[in-house]
């Protein structure tokens, strides 16, 4: 499983990348491989105010559905509309084309509370 060293992670399998104060969020390579072929994605709406652990999206495969959680409190600034028609982008490129939403954290320091790559790898059982 690919766990980029420079990203931060949640225990619910989201990854977070900070770009100029905006957090880009998606689901990890481990999560997409566990779900396998994604068939449906539900995204939050721009300007939504969210709290940490809010269920703000859904990913579905043929066999399973899984909620997407806000990694911390903040405001949604942008969502990846391309996923609506092509949810498989999450399977093929989870950390780049498969990003799900961007948000402005209420408290920029909150990202420090997330897991680093080593901690996340310890969490996810080896395939």
């Amino acid at each position, binding site marked *: 499983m690919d766990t980029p060293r420079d990203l931060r992670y949640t225990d619910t399998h989201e990854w977070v990348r900070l770009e100029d104060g905006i957090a880009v969020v998606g689901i990890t390579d481990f999560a997409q491989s566990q779900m396998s072929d994604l068939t*449906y994605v539900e995204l939050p709406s721009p300007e939504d105010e969210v709290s940490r652990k809010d269920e703000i999206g859904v990913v579905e495969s043929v066999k399973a559905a899984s909620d997407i959680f806000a990694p911390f409190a903040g405001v949604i600034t942008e969502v990846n509309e391309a996923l609506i028609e092509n*949810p498989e982008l999450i399977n093929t490129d989870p950390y780049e084309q498969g990003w799900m939403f961007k948000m402005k954290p209420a408290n920029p320091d909150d990202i420090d509370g997330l897991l680093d790559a080593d901690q996340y790898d310890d969490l996810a059982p080896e395939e």
Partner: protein
Amino acid sequence: MRTILYEEHVACGAKTAPFGGWDMPIQYAGILIEHAYTRGQCSLFDICHMGEFEVAGPTACADLEHLLTQQVASLEVGQCRYGYLLREDGGALDDLTCYRLGPDRYYLVVNAATCPGDAAWIRAHLSPETTFIDHSPQTAKLDIQGPQSRAVLEMFLGEPAPELKYFRAVETTLRGVPGLISRTGYTGEWGYELYFPVEKAVEFWRRFLEHTPAKPAGLGARDTLRLEMGYALYGHELSTDRTPVGAGRGMFIDTTKDFIGKEAVMRELEEGAAQYLVGLQLHTRRAARAGNVVVADDQPVGMVTSGSLAPSIGTAVAMAYVDAPYTTPGASLAVIVGGKNLPATVVAFPFYKDGTARKKSGR
């Protein structure tokens, strides 16, 4: 338990999961890819987990007529028929296919999870002169399904495939060993179910993959393929909790004969069942799942038994038991999924109408 092909599946990169007491391949390349390959070309399925019984003797026909809902006496040698095994109260113990292999010799193909219970129930209801053999441990079953199945079977056999109509089978030799070739399946596509000695399973599996265009498909694709056809899956659409009248409004039930459970079945046929199985066409890719509640004007009227994205259709579909007044095709219902109402329209089965299973020649 694992089928004899477990190591082959692992070598093919399968993800496995428990099904009916067996650790089975769910997918190899991916459910959507395998689904599409079955609809377009030909897939190979390991179905060794299912059970096979031989019931024989001069009293076998009458015994099976009493045990099964489908008519047995009118089966020709080489013909098979789908139906149900019921309890006295009409609850379905299993759904199964009954083949007539000889004048007094029948072959039953049953589900994996129900196999031990079926064997005990059937044995307990046989005449002393009827013999019962559970061939399951010695029998391998491979399904080849898809419009290219006939060509694939011929490449595999190295000789022309037997001419078989739909729901016909022939006892023959497969590459030198005795077996059964049946023109049946669970996908809606032209295809065959092959039964042969378990010792040949690994060799035959590899031969299909190395010498024909067939690719392995797992139980994940098998499930989406059967869902698109509206075929019942025991444990989802069928159980001991209901008679099969709700599932098929009397289809696969011969009411001209006596059979165990007939009284309950006739009562429901005459008075009407409380709920019937319907197809639900959803309007997005978001899937309804087994256990989701079906509502009409926010009042609960039923429950989903199977649901998924239908890959060949492009939207989600579901099968659901719904209160009788809401079962007319065209009726507008909704399914509660994740706290939201997903609109759904009642439609007739099958969801997918372009299956090749009943085509004339298979070429």
